[in-house]
């Protein structure tokens, strides 16, 4: 039981960090990025190619993260341009459809060109004991990195002027403009950040299990579910939802098998949406 809960926390932290990227972009820009999973996969592939090219692990990971940031910026400059001209529901719908198209383009190409590739980062060393349960070293390292990342995120949003400026756009876009904050510039920063987070999750995930080329849509679906349950636009919500859903999923998986536990996860998400559509801590409707 404790093992399941710990596994759930490991999983949940990843869910949370992953969803943070998606929820920030929605909260700030009213844009739903369905190519999010593909961004993670591309970054993972970049790291893989770097490693295959004899680049040492840390710089290779650095390359992967940089690719993530660049992808976010490219998104902002290209596919999101026509979407910015719309507002509200029309914007969400068009962003959904266009990013879906992009997701197909990337997924189609990658699964055709590199059908069997996957990134795996092996973390050497034996298992580490937590609360009497031996945990794989890779899981521990992944969780530690995720916690540091989440901590940094919080420090950024609470403690820095730029971070507060970003939050203010999520709170009230017009109010932000009135104090001199440019929402477009903030969105650009957040998109770069979401790309970075996607890359970071891909890299840390690969320490636990291989991140394959076809994992894109699955990643997006998980991120979407956690985002919606946590509340669109709330990073704290995403984290909370991530951990809860991670633990639920893990406990369910150990008792009734992967497929049915996924149903529990989906069911939990559906119930949350129905009872509280704005999510646990949501902002926008």
């Amino acid at each position: 039981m404790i093992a399941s809960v710990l596994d759930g926390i490991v999983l949940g932290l990843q869910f949370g960090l992953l969803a943070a990227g998606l929820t920030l972009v929605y909260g700030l820009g009213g844009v739903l990025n369905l190519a999010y999973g593909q961004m993670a996969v591309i970054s993972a592939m970049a790291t893989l190619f770097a490693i295959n090219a004899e680049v040492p692990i840390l710089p290779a990971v650095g390359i992967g993260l940089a690719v993530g940031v660049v992808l976010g910026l490219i998104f902002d400059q290209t596919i999101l341009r026509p979407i910015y001209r719309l507002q509200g529901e029309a914007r969400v719908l068009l962003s959904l459809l266009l990013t879906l198209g992009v997701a197909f383009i990337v997924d189609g190409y990658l699964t055709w060109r590199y059908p069997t590739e996957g990134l795996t980062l092996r973390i050497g060393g034996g298992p580490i004991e937590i609360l009497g349960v031996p945990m794989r070293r890779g899981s521990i390292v992944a969780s530690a990195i995720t916690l540091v990342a989440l901590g940094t995120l919080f420090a950024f949003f609470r403690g820095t002027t730029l971070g507060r400026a970003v939050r203010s756009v999520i709170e009230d876009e017009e109010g932000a403009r009135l104090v001199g904050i440019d929402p477009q510039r903030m969105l650009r920063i957040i998109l770069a950040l979401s790309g970075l987070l996607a890359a970071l999750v891909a890299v840390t995930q690969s320490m636990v299990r291989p991140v394959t080329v076809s994992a894109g849509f699955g990643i997006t679906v998980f991120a979407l579910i956690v985002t919606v349950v946590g509340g669109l636009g709330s990073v704290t919500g995403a984290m909370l939802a991530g951990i809860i859903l991670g633990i639920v999923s893990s406990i369910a998986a150990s008792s009734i098998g992967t497929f049915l536990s996924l149903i529990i996860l989906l069911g939990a998400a559906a119930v949350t949406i129905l009872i509280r559509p704005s999510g646990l801590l949501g902002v926008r409707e």
Partner: protein
Amino acid sequence: MTERFTEATGTALIGGTEERASRSLRALSLPVALIGALLALAPLWLGDSRVQMGVAVIGLTFACYAIGFNLIFGSTGQLFLCVGALAGLGGYGGAILADTVGLPIIVSIVVATLVASLVGGLLSWIAVRRSLGVIFTGIITLIFALAFENLLLGLGGVSGGESGFPISSGADSFLRRQIPPYYVMLGLVLVFLLAHGLLRRSHVGWAFRALRDDEVAAELAGVDVARYRVYAALIGAAMLGMAGATYAFTEGRISPTTFGFAQVDVVVLVMLAFGGIGTLFGPILGAITFTALDEVLIELGQLRVLVYGILVIVLFLWIPRGVIPTLQGLLRRRRAS
């Protein structure tokens, strides 16, 4: 370009185009008969190849799916991302009822259709009760679709799991031969088209248009928006279930990927968006076009998905209302000038 999308969003994505609903029944039955006649000729040149006939049957099945989805989304703006799952309820439901429970095929199909219809109606009712907007309806139905897919995979004992469900009922009937299934599905397509057409001309269709164009105004005019939404879902889901069940019996073997989200919903969405959401013949145009396109691109294998991605982007940036409404608009402008 984006003005078109905004205008289109107001009508097409969340509604549909205004087609002059002619009161004459002939005006409906004539084009339907024409399409029926044309499509009936297809086996003449495809009939020799089992593979090609198989593809044609799938194409007609998707046309049925598209008509059902059009009824739910195009008529009443409910973004149901569980088209495959509802069809799967029909398919798996029918298969289980016939093979495992032992009911006759026709009865199995009818019962499975009812089940799919009720589930669709339930989803709609839930969405209405909780006032879920388009996006959240999409998310909830997507969750249902994913849950259903996982249910099929998880309950292997009942459903055959990942490897699928071989259907022995009707194995030696006309349903499994090369050409009859084509006409069976074609029959369904024509029946669905007529049903949709008649619905449009009825007071139900009027209510659909009213609530699609302006929900608040419709409520004030006395249209019970909730009720008509559920009606649309009940009928649309019934179509999906019936198509799924019938297809299952002609195919002889179904698996979770037969009715998966990526395999069905995405394709149907693109087909309908291409043809024209809310139009009567849009689903047919979309289904034929994309089935043919898929065959043409078969060499590309996985790369086809890339092509579809490009098409989705091009479609929603430049022809958001779909081909039929765009052509109608062009014709109207030409007539006016």
